[in-house]
Structure formats: structure tokens, C-alpha cells
């Protein structure tokens, strides 16, 4: 328990009069639209639980109005949660005084916003140094630090520009640099690239992956873009109408969607590029030759294509030195073929095993979503 960077248990956020009375009452079970009609309150976050490991990139993904932006704001109480438990690095955030909360925001958790939220009347360098400035860091020191961050995000030479002189992508680099400048343990991203052009968005995603490799911060990333979620997330939580429907690795979401909603979401994902051989391997049929090429079970299907092309023998799928099954050319073609009707693939037992072995505690919300 104590090892999680962020730990959320049964978090609720209901907007509206007397919101706290709804929790625990039968009204809490209502769908958001019914609740609004009945009480005038809007349930933006409903009984959400998850954990984020230190150094993990955790993506929360959902359509607009699913409550994901509210959820991320609840983490540092920019929006005050209505109920639930909330711990960052083991400390109870909901019990913090205003001063402790400020300290948390100043030093340990910082955020990147969809619409940047830069100060138009300040130069880039002063925007980046803003977080240090409000901590009371002296001018020379904070400028020095801001310049260092500037080069980290690739903005050298722009320190004396004003935000409006920069393109959208560069403005978001400033937003990113501002968040990094205070050297936080956790970075929160609220749809940071949604306002950017597709090409720039791709660059920025690569930037985040690079930064994560270099600085290794814990990241919570909000997005409505599935491909972005699959690209960045080590684990992804899918939100719908304020609740988390499923939490899992990209492979788990695509391979074993918890319900119709998730399945619908991942329908267009090229499965061969996300799933590994483990998901399509099967016991060898009698008489099938077992002298084909050997590949580890974790190999992405797409990457097994060259091996399958090189040999007409079925590929032998191996995990921990033992044969777990075979995959023939037909099996690979079946996975690459664009899906016309959904084939539910049941998760092999091994995957669940791998999950626990890797220490990734699957959130209870995911489990309850499956139930």
C-alpha cells in the first residue's frame, strides 16, 4: 500500500447543492442524467479507485464529460473532492491544511494544462520561473534554473519571447517547462496536446516519452485520444460517466475489454500492433511440425511477421524457456486482418499471472467493472 505514488480510494465529486448528502444514499447509484434530473446535482467523479506506482505513466482516458479533468483536479484539490480517500506518497491529501496543500502543489505535484494557462504579460523565462517565484526563490537562482529547464524541453533561444510570439506547440513546451521547473515528484497532464495540430501533437508525445525516460517522474496523463493513451500509458484507466470502467495495460484493454463500452473504444485499434503472440498462441495440432522459428511470448504480433514470412513452419511461442504454444501464418493473418466482427479473445491464464508477478495491482474499479 505504502509504495504507491498516488492512491485513490472511493473518490467522489458531485457538483451542486448539498452534494455530500447524496453519497451513501440510494441516489448515488443513479446514472448522472437521472441524478441531475432528480437532485439538480452533477456527479462528475463516481466512486473512483486506482493506484499509480512511482515512476509510472498512468493514463486516464475518456470522452469529454466523462469526468477525467475533474478527477485530475481532485488530486491536488484544485477541485475539492466530495468524498473518498486520497494519498500522495502515503500522505493523506484530503486532511491537509491550506498551507500543507500549498506546499504539496509548490514542491511535489505540478500540472500541465490543455490551454497552457501561461501569463501573457511575462517572458517565457519568467513564465517558467513562476512556480519558483511564488516559492520565494531569488531572481538570479530561478532564472538560472529556468534556463536549464528551457534547454531540456528544447526552447533554447526563446527565453525572452512572450508567449503570444510562440506557436501552440512551443507554448505547451513552456507549460511543460513550468511544471518541471519546480522539480516535482508527480506531473499531472490535463489533455495537454488536444489543442495542438496532429503533427505537433506527435512531436510532443515523443517529447513526453523522452522526458519520462530522462527524468523518470510519476505521470498522470489525461486524454480523450485512444492512440495517445496507447502510446504513452503503461496502464490506462477508461472512464465513463464519472466511473472507471477498466484499468489495464494497453494489451489487456485491447485483448480483453471489460465490457461493450471498452470493446467499442478499442474496436479500431490495429490489434496486431498492440497484442503479443501470447494472445493468439494455441496448442499445436496433431501432426503440426514443431521445428519453426522460436519467439518469446511477449513479442508484438506485428513484429512476428518477418519470422512468419521467412519460414512456412508455425512459430514456436516460448515463455521462460518453455513452449507455451504455436502460431501459424494463418493465425497471424487473422490478427492483422481488420476486424469486421468482434472476436472475443479470452485472456490466457498466464496474462493474469504476469500481471501479479509484475507487481501491477489491478485497481478494484477495474475488477468491479468486469463484474
Amino acid at each position, binding site marked *: 500500500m505504502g509504495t504507491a505514488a498516488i492512491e485513490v480510494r472511493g473518490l467522489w465529486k458531485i457538483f451542486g447543492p448539498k452534494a455530500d448528502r447524496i453519497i451513501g444514499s440510494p441516489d448515488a447509484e443513479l446514472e448522472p442524467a437521472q441524478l441531475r434530473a432528480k437532485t439538480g446535482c452533477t456527479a462528475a467523479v463516481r466512486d473512483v479507485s486506482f493506484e499509480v506506482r512511482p515512476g509510472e505513466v498512468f493514463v486516464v482516458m475518456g470522452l469529454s464529460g466523462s469526468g477525467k479533468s475533474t478527477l485530475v483536479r481532485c488530486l491536488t484539490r484544485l477541485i475539492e473532492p466530495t468524498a473518498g480517500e486520497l494519498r500522495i506518497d502515503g500522505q493523506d491529501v484530503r486532511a491537509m491544511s491550506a498551507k500543507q496543500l500549498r506546499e504539496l502543489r509548490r514542491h511535489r505535484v505540478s500540472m500541465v494544462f490543455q490551454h497552457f494557462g501561461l501569463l501573457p504579460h511575462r517572458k517565457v523565462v519568467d513564465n517558467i520561473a*513562476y512556480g519558483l517565484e511564488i*516559492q520565494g526563490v531569488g531572481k538570479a537562482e530561478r532564472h538560472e534554473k529556468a534556463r536549464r529547464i528551457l534547454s531540456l524541453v528544447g526552447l533554447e533561444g526563446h527565453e525572452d519571447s512572450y508567449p503570444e510570439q510562440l506557436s501552440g506547440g512551443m507554448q505547451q513546451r513552456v507549460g511543460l517547462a513550468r511544471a518541471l521547473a*519546480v522539480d516535482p515528484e508527480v506531473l499531472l497532464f490535463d489533455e495537454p496536446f488536444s489543442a495542438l495540430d496532429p503533427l505537433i501533437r506527435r512531436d510532443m508525445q515523443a517529447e513526453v516519452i523522452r522526458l519520462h525516460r530522462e527524468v523518470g517522474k510519476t505521470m498522470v496523463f489525461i486524454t480523450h485520444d485512444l492512440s495517445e493513451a496507447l502510446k504513452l500509458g503503461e496502464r490506462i484507466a477508461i472512464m465513463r460517466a464519472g466511473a472507471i470502467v477498466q484499468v489495464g495495460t494497453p494489451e489487456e484493454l485491447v485483448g480483453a475489454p471489460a465490457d461493450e463500452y471498452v470493446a467499442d473504444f478499442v474496436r479500431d485499434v490495429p490489434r496486431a500492433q498492440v497484442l503479443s503472440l501470447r494472445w493468439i498462441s494455441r496448442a499445436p495440432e496433431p501432426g503440426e511440425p514443431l521445428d519453426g522459428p522460436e519467439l518469446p511470448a511477449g513479442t508484438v504480433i506485428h513484429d512476428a511477421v518477418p519470422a512468419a514470412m521467412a519460414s512456412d513452419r508455425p512459430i514456436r511461442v516460448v515463455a521462460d524457456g518453455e513452449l507455451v504454444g504455436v502460431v501459424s501464418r494463418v493465425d497471424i493473418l487473422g490478427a492483422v486482418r481488420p476486424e469486421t466482427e468482434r472476436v472475443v479473445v479470452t485472456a490466457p491464464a498466464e496474462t493474469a499471472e504476469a500481471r501479479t508477478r509484475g507487481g501491477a495491482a489491478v485497481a478494484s474499479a477495474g475488477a468491479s467493472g468486469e463484474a
Partner: protein
Amino acid sequence: MVSAPVQAAPPVQAPARARRLPRWVVPVAGVVAGVALYVLFRGRAVLPHDDDATLFHWLNDARDWVDANRNSNPIFLYVVNYLRLGASEVFALIQGALVALGWPGLVGLAAGLGWLAGGWRIAVVSLVGFAGLGVLGFWEASVETLALTLSAVVLSLLFGIPLGIWAGRSPRVRRIVTPVLDVMQIMPTFSYLSPMVLLFLIGSASSTIATMIYAMPPAIRITALAIERVSGVTVEASESLGATGWQTLRKVRLPLALNTIMLGVNQTIAAALSMVPLTALIAAPGLGEDLLRALARVNVGAALVPGVAIVLIAIVLDRMTRAAAQRRDGGSRARAVRWGGFAVLTAAGLALTPVLAQEFPEQWQVQVIRPINDVADWIEAHWYTFTGFLNDTVAYGFLNPLQDLLTSAPWWLVTAAVLVFAWRVSGPAAGLVAAVCLLGVAALGLWEHGMETLTMVLVGSVITIAAGLALGVAAARSRWFAAVLRPLLDAAQTMPSFSYLLPAVALFGNGRFTAIMAAFIYAVPVVARVVEDGLRAVPGTVMEAARSTGSTDRQLLWKVQLPMARGSLLLAANQGIVMTLAMVVIGALVGAGALGYDVVAGFAQQEDYGKGLAAGVALVLLGVMLDRITQGANGRRSPHKKRNA
């Protein structure tokens, strides 16, 4: 009028609709009933004016009591008198500083501030404008007016900006403050003066406080708006980094709101300059004194010159603050140039003070009063056929019949008519408020004078709104016409309100028509501007869609633009009426009589004080009534929207 509907296949909801009367029946029936009642009861239940009304005497007694106890009553001793003392100290301090600079010093400082605010252009405007005050021969009076204005502005901002920030941050405060400001802004300038005299006696202190109260609403309103409009994302970003409320206010909200707040300062100065000259009525020093004296003697030249001096001050201060509001921070070099220029210009002015003497040299002054009067005389002699014709047409054709109608109708009939009209236009609440206000005027014993003022307002607003509508539509439809009109309207909006009396007096002499013409020149720019903006705000996509169906320009205007600009049109009507009232009241200075004159007389004659005070209140009631009738319509949603809701 309405042909019988031909309905081959009646729509589903036809039965319900068939029983309803055509829309015109009720209003026509109302008008017919009103006319019948008027014919029946004409001349009965009228309320003729009585200078000896009990209320006036009672108010006089109250004034006498205040005068007698001014130095013994604790409220006066410990609160009111200190406020007066404080205000006169602020004025004395600012005036002392301005005088100490000497005229070259002050002109230099003005040029320096102009440079600081907007570069060499504004520096030149400031230099020429302030030097012009001396050239016109009104340097000392101008400095007094400037000192009064600055005192009032400083105090307005001192209270107005914090209050505005508070209102911008707290919706609850905003809900309390907004209606108060609404009423303050429709109160005609005159109605602020009488109570000030009661509390603070006559003189500069009273003038400063009255001006401060009059000029504060824009400071509060615009500051609140500016603070409220600061991007929520930016504020959230600041909070997410752990900024305290105070840090976010100082480092995010205020810097982002600063330019808009400067516009509030600009508006506050404009309001103060409208009020300060009028406070000469309560013995405030400055240009207003010369102006009022000349107006009383119908000496056009002697009134025009101090008027021009006030306009010069207004233009300089307006350009300066407007430039400051648009300023963007450049690099450190630009900053050095700005402050360097400021220092050089100010120092140059100060250095010249010992050389050029404190007094503005007489040989540099230009005598323009006589030539102006010659021109005025020439106009009177040669244009009389035209101006006299206009004057008589409006007086005999509109003013007199309407005034006869309103003063000979029973008071209850007029009140009922207002109630019904306001109800239909703006809903029941507005109708009741309007009727109660009118009854208040009757209760104050000022019915007849109130009806005289109302007559001028109605005639004036009809002319104003018609002209403003035509100009606004023309400007919205023709780019070049707008380009010509814009700067004229901008210039017109910088002028202090009473300055509009001067050209009207020059053309038409004294009288009600002059007041109406002044109101016309004063309010038309605003009406035209609001109409134009409203029409231009119609979304381009809607216009494009209408054009794609083959609408003519005329159809576009009548079927798309005007209906969609409904809110703006009503706002234009509201502004036109309220501004006409304000000007018609000031028109008392040029012989327009009625309630405005009662207020002025209250300052001149001891025994008329009570009547003047009551007239001030009556003006507020009339203002609220006229505003409610039109503003309610603005607030009410259009019938189409209502049906859907």
C-alpha cells in the same frame, strides 16, 4: 389591417389559436380607453405646481436644523465634518502641488506623462492641449478644475478599484453592488448636488465628494469586469503551483486586468470632467464658474472659451489614459527610452518655470471671446429664419401639445398609462416600479414640473433614437460611412456632457429646444454606436446563409439583422432616453426650466432649497422610471425564446 386567415387545412393547434384575438386588438382598445378617459376627465385631478408645498417647507426646516446643529451633533462632528475636511485637504494638496509646478512645469509634466503613456504623439497632444489652456486665458481656472477633477478621480479610484476587485471575486458582493451602480448611473448629475450641500456645505469639498460619487461607478464596474474576465486557466495554473490567493491576485489577476482597469480610469476621468464644471453651482472654483456666469448672461463667446478649455483637459486626459490602457511592455531598452523621455520633458518644464514665471504670460494669450460673439451674432441675424423655424416647429408642433396633454390629464390616468405601457414592454415588475416612481413625483409636489421635464425627454428621445438608428444602420451597412463616423463619435464621447449645450446655445439661443438639441448631440453618438455594434455582431454565418437564399439587402436588414440585434436596439433606446434626461436637466442652465431649474434655484435662493432637494429626488425617480420601462425589455428574453423555454 389583418385579412381573415384563409385556412384550407388548419394546423393542429388551430382551435386554440382561433379563439385568441388578433394581436393588435388589446393595444388599440387600451389606447381608445385612454383617450376616452382623457376626454371625460380632462382638467380634473390635475396637480398644478405650488411653490409653497408643505414638503418643501419641511425640507427647508430640516436644512435649518442641520445648519444649526452642524457643530454639535455627534454624527456631523465626528463623521461628516471629517469627511469634508479630508476632501478639502486632498483638494488643497493637489491644487497646491499643481500650482507649485508653475505653468511651464505642469505643461512639461503633462508632456512627460503623455510620452510615458503613448510616445511622442500623446506627448504633443498633452503639450499643445495644456499650453492651450493658458493661450485661451484661463490658466488659473483650468488648474483649479484640473485639481478638483484629479482629487475626485484619486478618491474614486482609491475606493472604486478595491471595491471592484472584491466585486469581481465575489458573486455575492457583485449582486449587491450592481443594482446600486445601476441606479447611480441613471441619476442625473444635478440630483447629487443638493444632498451634498446639506451634508458638506458649498465649496470645493462638496464638489469633490459629489464628483467622486458620480465618477466611481465606472471604476468599480470595469475593475470588477476586468478581474472577472481574467482567464480561469491561468488562475488555475497559478493555484496548481501553490500560489496563495494574494500571490495570484498580485502576479496574475491584476497584471492581466491592468489594461482594462486603465479603461476604467479613463471612464472615471470622463465622468468626473462631466460633473466638475457643474459643481460651480455649489460654489466650486474653476472653469465652471466662468462658464455658468456666461451662460446666465447668454454670452456665447464667454461661455464657449472656458468650455473649450474643459474639452482640452478632457481630450488630454482621455488620450493619455487610453494610450496607457493599450500600452504593451517592451524590452528593457524601450523602458529606458520611455522613462528617460518622461524625465527629460518634466525636467525641462520645471527648469523653465523660474525663467517664464508662474503666471501664464499675458502677451501669449489670445482674445477670442469677441470674435466668437461676432460669429454668434451673425448666425442669429442671418440664420434666424431657419433656426427660428426649427425651434417653433418643435415647440408648437410637439412640445406644447404633449405638455398640455400630460399636465391636463388626471394624474391617475397618466400613472395608469405608464403602468400599462411598462407592463406590456417590460413585464409586471418594471410596470410597478415605474408607476410607483411616478406616484413619488406626485407625492413630492412636483407633478407639473415633472410632466414638463418628461415632455422634453420624450420629444428629445424620439428625435435622438430615430437619428441614432438611421446613423447606426447606415454605418453598419457601409464601410466608408462607418470609417467617417467612427472618429466623430469617438471624439463626441470624450466631451464632458455640458459642453454640448454651447453649440446649441450659439445656434438656438435660450430655451427648451436648445436643451433638446444639446441632448440630441449628446446622445446620438452613443445610440448610433450601440446600434452599429449590435448589427455588426450578427454572426457572419447567419448573414451568409440568408444571402445564399437570395435575400435582398433590405430583406437582410429587416428580417435578419434588426431582429437579431433586438437586445442592442433596446439598449440603444434605453441609453438614448437616460442620456436625454441627463441633458434636458442640465438644460435648465440655458432656460429649459422644469425640474432642472428647481434644482438650480435651490442653490441660488435660501427659501427654495427644499424645492430643489425635492426636485433632485424627483429627477432620480423619473430616471429610474424611464430606465425600468426600457431596460426591462432588454432583460426580457424575446418571445420566441420564451416559448421554447
